């Protein structure tokens, strides 16, 4: 029998707020952090979801005035701080970082390339809080955030660690904008997940954090099942059959020992590209989940890459606590071949289990099942 792993505390920082409550409220009110900006000369009037520098500095200065930290390091530290508060870090505590591009902005400056190393970034965050164990970095494209949570859960099951702190962080950069733009994947308006007029993604930035433990007391949810199965199909295009996602969902439900019928809602990836959303709808159809309410938070936050999976899980855990199905901002009319169930307004229902999914470049997919605890 495997050990049970629980999440006791979460946090997130986005353009919509510096804690979970303000973010959850904003999502319920269908607010967006995405707006048109002219910050990037090469990309006039691009739609991005960015966190204000002044806000970051204001919060960070309350924490410390010592040391030099990049913008992303400050964000990661700020996201973890309340999660770590009051907890004693021991040699049984481990830090897990999820990021796709980390400090990639350093490449624009005249610093050595190796300074942008993801391992360095993780170590810097670990040092700030005084972790004595080696941090683990998960960098697996757009599933990284939710995969890091899955890796943390597994580590607590197989290793001597007793608690894990997961932080997922990525920021908007010209590097990432120009890359997604070269793929013609960016929308020139607010993105519309699963909608018939969807035109692509909006890029965004965020950090999210979670504390995982083997102790049930004060836990919000139990991680009931998790899996990450590859599509074995294409490095930059989603599978037309949704094979990897379908298999990931199946394996996660198997581990959770529940039928798809028991899932109360799905917190999906829903990037609003033509092919991603269609692939997901096919995978959900094959998984007998079409009648389960599904939502995408991409029109609230944009695609926050390595942060997205954890950010969306954090918001979804709150939705689970509040017995609420979240609305999908940007969605108006069914635009995928399988009739997925999407709400445009929040809805109260009794919820016990939710499914989180993500998919990304390299054919990767992750699915996780969470169970609410009645404390």
């Amino acid at each position: 029998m495997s050990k049970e792993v629980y999440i006791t505390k979460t946090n997130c920082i986005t353009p919509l707020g510096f804690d979970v409550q303000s973010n959850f409220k904003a999502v319920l009110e269908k607010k967006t952090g995405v707006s048109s900006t002219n910050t990037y000369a090469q990309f006039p009037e691009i739609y991005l979801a960015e966190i204000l520098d002044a806000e970051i500095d204001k919060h960070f200065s309350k924490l410390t005035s010592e040391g030099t930290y990049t913008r992303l390091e400050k964000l990661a530290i700020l996201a973890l701080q309340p999660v770590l508060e009051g907890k004693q870090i021991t040699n049984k505590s481990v830090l897990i970082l999820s990021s796709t591009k980390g400090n990639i902005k350093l490449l624009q400056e005249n610093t050595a390339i190796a300074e942008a190393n993801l391992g360095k970034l993780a170590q810097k965050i670990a040092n700030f809080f005084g972790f004595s164990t080696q941090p683990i970095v998960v960098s697996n494209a757009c599933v990284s955030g939710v995969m890091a949570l899955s890796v943390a859960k597994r580590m607590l099951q197989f290793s001597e660690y007793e608690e894990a702190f997961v932080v997922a962080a990525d920021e908007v950069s010209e590097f990432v904008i120009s890359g997604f733009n070269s793929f013609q994947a960016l929308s020139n308006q607010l993105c519309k997940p699963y909608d018939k007029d969807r035109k692509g993604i909006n890029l965004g930035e965020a950090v999210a954090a979670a504390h995982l433990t083997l102790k049930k007391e004060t836990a919000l949810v139990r991680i009931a099942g998790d899996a990450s199965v590859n599509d074995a199909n294409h490095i930059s295009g989603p599978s037309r059959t949704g094979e990897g996602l379908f298999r990931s969902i199946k394996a996660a439900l198997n581990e959770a020992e529940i039928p798809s019928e028991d899932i109360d809602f799905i917190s999906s990836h829903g990037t609003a590209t033509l092919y991603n959303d269609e692939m997901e709808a096919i995978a959900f159809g094959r998984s007998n989940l079409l009648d389960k309410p599904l939502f995408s938070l991409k029109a609230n936050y944009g695609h926050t890459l390595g942060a997205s999976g954890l950010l969306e899980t954090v918001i979804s855990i709150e939705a689970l606590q509040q017995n609420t199905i979240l609305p999908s901002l940007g969605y108006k009319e069914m635009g995928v071949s399988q009739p997925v169930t999407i709400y445009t307004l929040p809805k109260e229902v009794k919820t016990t289990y939710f499914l989180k999914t993500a998919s990304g470049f390299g054919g990767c997919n992750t699915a996780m099942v969470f169970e609410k605890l009645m404390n």
Partner: protein
Amino acid sequence: MNNNFYIKSSVSIKKHKIVLDETEVFSSATDGFTAFSKEAYKNFEINYPKFFKMDNLSKLAFLGADLLLKKQGLNATDNDIALILANKSSSLDTDATYQETIADKENYFPSPAVFVYTLPNICIGEISIKHKLYAENSFFIFEDFNPKFLKEYSEFLIQSKKTTQVLWGWVEYFKKDYQATMYLISKEGKQVHSLENITKIYTQ
């Protein structure tokens, strides 16, 4: 229950030399990894033109995996071998190449063919596509080689029945320095999956 794990087959690629199951199978005095990998590709008759579209990290991981997996008599359509890869420098080598394409605003030429390789897990996708591996997969980054974590993680995947075998690999490529140490972990084999044996393959 048998709790032992074995290294079924291993490969090491570094310093223009390829060692498969502790036997040197190829070496070359050519200049640079790109030329070396092309010679190895020809030598082992890999015959997979997509290879030449890959960045160096993907070529390295792909070569190692191909040598290991072609001996396994895999199914042509569907295999369950998890891929657990790790390195120090992520995709930074290709990141720097991509950065050059956007550094000059007068000469701005970002390309999706380069950008896609600015994610380290793309090499997992390349290997999965070639060998039809519908399986668990993750890419990890460590400042230093971390055999303990990778060993325990891989064994857990088999023990918890998330997969039946794991292709484990340290695949590092940065500024012309490269090293691939990869092996197959299974419940069958001769060489015990111990930290000592892993380190032996890593340093050989």
